[in-house]
Structures are given as C-alpha cells and as structure tokens.
C-alpha cells in the first residue's frame, strides 16, 4: 500500500448528507475484476447526463474543482453497500483525503486499506470549511497525518485518528503482513478451538 504522510491540494465540495456508495460508484461498474480504472465511473449518475455529457449542475463538475485532491462533504459519507470500489473510484479520480463530520463504518475502514485518509471533524469546523472554500476559490489545504493537522491560509484544525491506523498509513503497512506476525498465536487458537 502507498503510504499517506501529507498532501497539499485543492478542495472540492459536495454539500450533501448520506452520500451512499451506490452514488459514489453505481452497480453497473462493479462487474470488473480489477482494482483500477474506476475513476471514470465516480458519481457516474450525478456527474454525467444520460447522453454521457457532463452535468453542469453537479458540484464536482465546477471548473474550480478540477484537479482537486481533497473532498469536503457532510454527514454519514459512504453509507450503504460495502463495495471497496467506492474508495478505489475516489482515489483513481484523484481524491486522497475526505473531510466530513461523520463516515459510515465500512467505508471509513476501506479507505485506510487503500492509502486514503478520511478525516472526521466537528460539525462547525466542517461548516466553516465549506465557507472558507466558497470564499477562497483555488485555495489549497494541507492534510498532514504526521502532525494530525489540517491547515490552509488563516486556518488550522487538529484532527483525531486512531494511532494504529495512523501508523499503518504513515508507513504504508499491509494488514495481512501485520497479522501474519502472529502466526503462532493463530495456530494456537486453532488447535484449541478446532
């Protein structure tokens, strides 16, 4: 897994609650057997019109969000289906960090397995960030996992993240390798429990 240490980038906003993984990547694109190439299908039904042209009303299509690597959104992001295609699509589209007041559990978990950082911030800070992005088009934010801070022109917020997850992400550690360090304990458990 690619480590995540720090990124600096443009912030795109998606001002909606309960964005589910069916919207992030609709089911017709789950038939592939690869992990790559899902970016083109991100928010497909919202981003594109029926005829395949970009939907100008969809926030992420706004020209100022082109090339954004941070996504700012609202409560319960990533709810619904467990499909890991959701973080794969977001990452492939260019987002490396997502900022929201809350995330759905499975999605949150899936992000960390793919070198992506979901940052949970208090409601009022998220609202302030929405205002900040609106008032400062083109401004960049820095998400620093090492120091656990989010910073930009005239703002700085600390954020919390589970120390174990942080460590894995900073070092790009793979969970399977970690677990296999405890092979002996697993074997012991198996011999006791059949």
């Amino acid at each position: 897994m690619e480590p995540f240490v720090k990124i600096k980038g443009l912030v795109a906003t998606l001002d909606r609650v309960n964005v589910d993984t069916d919207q992030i990547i609709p089911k017709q694109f789950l038939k592939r057997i690869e992990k790559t190439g899902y970016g083109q299908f991100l928010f497909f039904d919202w981003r594109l019109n029926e005829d395949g042209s970009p939907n100008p009303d969809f926030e992420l299509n706004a020209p100022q969000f082109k090339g954004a690597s941070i996504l700012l959104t609202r409560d319960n992001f990533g709810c619904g289906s467990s499909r890991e295609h959701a973080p794969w699509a977001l990452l492939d589209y260019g987002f490396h960090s997502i900022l929201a007041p809350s995330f759905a559990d499975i999605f949150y978990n899936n992000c960390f397995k793919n070198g992506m950082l979901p940052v949970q911030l208090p409601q009022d800070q998220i609202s302030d960030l929405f205002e900040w992005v609106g008032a400062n088009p083109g401004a960049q934010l820095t998400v620093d996992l090492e120091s656990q801070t989010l910073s930009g022109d005239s703002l700085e917020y600390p954020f919390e993240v589970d120390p174990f997850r942080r460590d894995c992400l900073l070092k790009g550690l793979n969970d399977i390798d970690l677990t296999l360090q405890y092979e002996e304990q697993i074997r012991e458990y198996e011999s006791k429990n059949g």
Partner: protein
Amino acid sequence: MSKEPKTLLDKIWDRHVVHQEPGQPAILYIDCHLVHEVTSAQAFEGLRLAGRKVRRPNLTYATVDHNVPTWDRSLPITDAISKLQIDTLGKNCKEFEIQLFGLDSPNQGIVHVIGPELGITQPGKTLVCGDSHTSTHGAFGTLAFGVGTSEVEHVLATQCLLQSKPRSLQIQVQGQLPTGVTAKDVILYIIRTIGTDGGTGCVIEYTGDTIGRFTMEERMTVCNMSIEAGARAGMIAPDETTYAYVEGRSYAPQGKEFQDAVDYWKTLPSDPDASFDRTVEVEVSSLAPQVSWGTNPGMVTDVTGTVPDPESFADETSRRAARSALEYMGLQPGLPITEIKLDRVFIGSCTNARIEDLRAAARMIQGRKVSSSLQAMVVPGSQQVKRQAEKEGLDRIFTEAGFDWRESGCSMCLGMNPDILSPGQHCASTSNRNFEGRQGRGGRTHLVSPAMAAVAAIEGHFTDIRQWSDN
C-alpha cells in the same frame, strides 16, 4: 474468578480474540467466511500476487447471486462482463479449493439466504462476507458483519480480521404487532426513528417480547437492515426458535454434537445485568405498515400518512436532503402515500425472499389479479426457497395472478443483472435500499413488506393492509 456481566456481543467477541497488543485492534478469529462474485475477484488476485493460499478453505463457502440472470438457467448469460465475473469466481474456487454453490447447484441463492438455510450460520460464531447485509446472520446470535474486499483477502489469507470492538446498542422492541404489520415494518420504523446513522460504530442487539415471538425469518429481516441504520451488525440472542431452525440442516452439527452446541448456545444470551452503551425502546402495538417515500431507508412514513413537506424538517441540511429526495422521486408534499402511482412490484432480496415472505405475499393475492397498470415479479431468495414454494403451489398463485416467477438471485434489489426499473418508474419493493438509481437509473423505490407489496400489485397503489385483510 470475577463474573462481570456480559452482553451477547461481549461473549462472542471475547471467545474469538486470538491476540491483542495494547493500543491496537484485536486479531479476531473468523469461523465462517461467505464469498460472492462481486467483491472477491480482487481479493483472490491479491492472494495470487502475494503467493498465498486460503488458510481455511473448509470454513469458506461461495455462491453467485448479485449478477446472475433470473430467467431460465439453461440460457447463456448474455452480459459478457457479468459472465466473466461469475466464471472468475468459479475458477478461483477451484484453484483455492473452496466449496461453490454455483449456478447449477440446487443450493445456489442469495448469500444471506443460503448461509442460514444450509445451517452454515450458527449461534456464537463469527461470520463475515464482502457484503454489507451480512448483518442478516446476526438473527442467530452470530456476530456477523460486512467487510470490504481488502478484508475479504485478509480473511482468506489469515482466517482473522483486525477489529476494534464496536460499541453496543440495545433496541428493545415491545408490544403485540397488529395483524398485517410485519418485521419489515418494525425495522423500517426503527431506522425512521434512529436515523440512517443511528447505529454507526455499534453492534445492535434487538431484545424485547416482540423480537422473542418473531420466527427466524422475521428476525433475519430485522437484522438484515441493521446496516441501513449504519450499524456494524445486528444480533438477536439464540433461543428455542433458533435451535429448532438450525437443527437438521446440512451443515449444522448433528446428533450429540448438536446437543453440545445447544448447551453452548444457551450460555450466549446477554446476562440480565449486562450494560449496553445505549438503549432505545420501541413500542409497536399500534404500528402502521411503513412505506419509504424518499431516497434513503430512514425516509419512511405510515401508509396512512402523506409525503412530508421538506420545510417541516428541523434543520437546513435535512430540508435540503428531503427536497432533493422529493425531486428525484417526483413526489409532491402532502400527497397521500396511497395515491403514489406504482409501475412495478418486486418481491425479492435478502431482506424478504424467504419462504415465509413468499407465503405472506401469496396469502394476500390468492385468486386475485395483478393490476393492469403495473408489472410484478417474484424472485425467490434461493433455489431451496423456490423448490419449497413450488411444492406448496405458491408459484401458481403468483403466476395465475400475473406475477413473473423467477430463478433465485439478487435481481432487482440492485439491478446488476438485466432486471431493472426504467427512469421515472415507481416500484413497491421488499428490498432494503431506496437509494437513487439502486434499482436502475432514475428508478424510484418504495420499501415495504412482502404483504404490502403483494397488495400494491393487486390494487396498483399502496393500501393499508390492516383494513384490506378484513375484506
């Protein structure tokens, strides 16, 4: 030894912790791993790239369900990409020596229907699957939760998962349900009450006399939709109903082993003085049938109600969400739920396509005809359910009424196969998600119970079946 009171979750959790370093998640042993075609290919590929094997192939079971056509099984699959995914699972199961209930198996079906019906799902076990509705299996007092593809690979390789212990939420359901009001209405009402993120970070344990009276099928319907409240899992303590359901099933312990298992299962229910992080009480003795009007499973109201006015919501974010839901659904505030015009009816999915669900639906429509204004279909949850229904003549009741009678699979629950809604169509559906586009781009889903869906098919619109059944 001190005897700290424990919940059902605590008991199963503690028994499955292989190892835990301070400040790190536990290494949790997984007793049973279910696999399907959509979320597994990349996991098997990961194993191959790392030169790993499946650690316990005999604890792993696979089936195809999401993608499979539900028409005649002797016809070829026309969608080449679907076919590739289905074939890939076949190859992976062969290479890694995993038992597959494939398209030609008499036991094929939706993964959350076949686990329980084969007796694979058992109380006290840990069970995972790369699918969020794995919460279904919690109905047996199993700790069962959905995982992503990376974790599928992790379980295949190690038979363990790295997990932090979730918080516990008790939902106490009290009261005798009125006739015509079902487990589906109960869970929709719960989600309506606690919200689609009301269970985030938690494992829900459903308790109370209503739950105690529920059959296993009803319990599965409730636990199935725990994820729609954001919960990691839903659980119900095993009791006589549970043992009776499991006994005699192909993969369940037999004879003396079954008795030993029951002795263990009896130790599982939460201790009377065990404490939960949070408790919610729900009274259901005057509950009305529930219908969803919006684009998430918390946007639900009584069948006797009306489409809500977005302006009536407390905060701007909810108002905006309701406005955009109504726009997508093509509904006006104040419209009575019974006046929503329906185009399709879907009876199926891992929420409501078990034999009892089909019986409940068939009972309502016997000798009647599907309204000429809509199309209706029944997709049994598994081949076993289908055979049983045919044995009981339910298929004829459905087909004579004008329903399509299909082969088993997920079908129009998510529309990955050819069964989808056309843009703008309203569908009464017994599934679990009414997200935008879930049943087809532009499709408008209304979640209801099987009996409500069946009557909607006859009437062409929603009807309060508490009155209807009296006719």
